[in-house]
């Protein structure tokens, strides 16, 4: 079965090796007995394989069109921007009912309670409150001012008197305050138009000189302003919700089409 190297090979092999200065006895048996170097067969590529590969190529194109982030260098979430969904349409801004609730839970529940009912005599209720939704002399501007600069001294809410201290929250950003206010105006059965970050920013600028918390009397002296509900632009950080069942009454202006690319 195997060439024996101790037995001189054919004359032809011997003469070839001598030409190279080798003796057939020194050449290892493995080299002499091994099979020819590999050759190529020419079986065709099976059709089913080509079909599978074509299906993969199709999948690749589809995946890319959904998760390419519009090929933008500053889009980091593959599901956020879809090439297929109209050349980089931006998904709607954050839902204030979700973010607002989170901020409310983090900052406000200690006094106003998760139910928004507050504590009798101390922390006023937010439910169906004229301070929150607007009333005889209460405007939306007052609400924003209270959040920015705080409120102290006795106040009347829905006929009950409370005497506590509301700390200023100006360390929060405009859009955060806007989302908290939009949230409390539309939770627990409340219903009022959203507050936008721009409106908060404007009042923050107007009241930059305010250094101490308001009192009820001081606020009463300021004329009430009811924000135009159609005003908020839908730009970044705005309070306008894009989608979602918990959203407050939608602003009237058109929202950019949100693309459910993640689906």
């Amino acid at each position, binding site marked *: 079965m195997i060439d024996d*190297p101790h037995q001189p090979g054919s004359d032809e092999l011997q003469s070839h090796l001598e030409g190279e200065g080798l003796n057939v006895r020194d050449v290892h*048996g493995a*080299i002499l007995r091994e099979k020819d170097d590999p050759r190529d067969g020419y079986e065709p590529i099976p059709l089913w394989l080509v079909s599978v590969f074509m299906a993969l190529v199709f999948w690749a194109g589809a995946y890319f069109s959904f998760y390419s982030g519009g090929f*933008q260098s500053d889009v980091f979430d593959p599901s956020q921007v879809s090439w297929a969904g109209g050349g980089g349409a931006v998904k709607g801004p954050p839902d204030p009912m979700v973010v607002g609730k989170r901020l409310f839970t983090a900052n406000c529940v200690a006094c106003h309670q998760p139910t928004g009912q507050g504590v009798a005599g101390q922390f006023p209720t937010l439910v169906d409150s004229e301070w929150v939704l607007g009333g005889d002399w209460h405007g939306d501007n007052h609400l924003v001012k209270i959040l920015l600069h705080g409120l102290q001294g006795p106040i009347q809410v829905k006929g009950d008197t409370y005497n506590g201290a509301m700390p200023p929250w100006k360390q929060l950003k405009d859009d955060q305050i806007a989302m908290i206010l939009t949230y409390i105006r539309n939770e627990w059965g409340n219903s009022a138009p959203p507050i936008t970050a721009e409106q908060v920013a404007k009042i923050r600028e107007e009241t930059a000189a305010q250094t101490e918390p308001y009192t009820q009397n001081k606020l009463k002296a300021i004329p009430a302003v009811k924000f135009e509900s159609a005003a908020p632009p839908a730009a970044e950080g705005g309070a306008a919700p894009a989608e979602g069942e918990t959203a407050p009454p939608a602003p009237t202006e058109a929202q950019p089409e949100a693309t459910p690319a993640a689906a």
Partner: protein
Amino acid sequence: MSATLTQAHPSTVTPEMEKAQRAVIDESTRLPVILFYGSAIFWLLTGSLLALLASFKLNEPSLLNQWGWLTFGRVRPAHLNAVVYGWASAAGIGTALWLMARLCRTPLRHSKLLVSAAIFWNIGILLGTLGILSGDGRSIEWLEFPNYSSFMLFVAFGLIAVWAVIMFRFRQPGHVYVSQWYLLAAFLWFPWLYSTANLLLNFEPIQGGAQGAVNWWYGHNALGLWFTPIGLATAYYLIPKVLGRPIHSYYLSILGFWSLALFYSWNGMHHLIGGPFPAWLVSASVVASVMMFIPVITTAINHHMTVRGNFEALKWSPTLRFTVFGAMCYTLASLQGISMAIPSLNKVTHFTHYTVGHAHLGLYAFFTMIMFGAMYYILPRVVGWEWPSARLIRWHFWLVAIGIGMMVVVLTLGGILQGLALLDPGITFMASLDYTKPWLFLRSVSGVLLTAGHIVFAVSFTLLLLKAGSKRSEPTLFGSDQGRQPEPLNV
């Protein structure tokens, strides 16, 4: 080689002339091949000991931690670099040198280039490993070697690449076999990858997040465009060679090669899923990773159809058994890698031992096993001596086959549990580590098996170099020492 042998037209070459050609070619490859193989086996043992130490430290963190140079943060990268560059790359180069000479059908030219490269290479590995242990290591995965070491490796590699181009230029006329495509490509790809990555990360570091992208572009391509082509080239040569059958389909070979070249280089960014990188970059990598299905399945079919009907030979031939084991694990490792690039699954497996198991499936069960197969084939030819002991080969095979099988299984299962625990907000990080403990213990056991297998192999290799035993001309086959009569098999 004399003109009679070299200038004969392929169609007029007789079988006797081919034998004479092979004798001359193998003679010419002796020194460089033994140099690269010998140093590779040395680094395999060193790397195994470092690996064992690192693994034991995960079982018992206080073990040997009184010395800075033996802390986990140094031992683990020292292990990785010693086995990746010292063992796997050197074994791959040794195999590739021999294959290049055989496939170019010309004696190995300029062996001084290769001997110098081997010396540079080993000094580089030695400096690098000591450098990492002494605290000079870089915090860049797969490129931890300090600059004074990586520079030496690059010089060595440059020499080898130049040599490869010269060899290819002076090849005998005739068909260029598929193994040759992979080898030449790998010899050109790797110096490019290695120099670019070192330049951009260590010598003139680029800024910010782009470092992560370059790091994984290199890390994954070292596997995909260096180890994979060499492993596949070896399998493409050895499987049909041992069986004496043609490779199944030239068309599948072409499709496999070009689709690998096209898709693999995009794969690296799938290591960055969830990271601060532009979405398109990561998504392109996810797509390319899944498209790797094409070269992987193509190659798997090509190899499988070549072996089909001859699986009996796996019972006898060490070369074929190691090589086919490796080729099958290539398919397995690649399919697993594809699944890990899918973001929803990556979420579980990322940052867990699952990834470590995958790395060993690729670099060990695929590449290292094929290198063992190649050594079993090539070394008797260049040394001029048959393997002294079939028993040692058998022990080697079962120790490493069971060892790596066990390692991959336990790391995979442990990694899944770890990943699910990490995702569960109700489980603290420290508690998630408890899930890995029993699996890491079993991993250490598998590491002991692997190391034992490596020691057996090193003994076998030393006995071969010493030409132990009596001169035989029949191959050392599994079972031939047990009085069983092998099928006729000329390997």
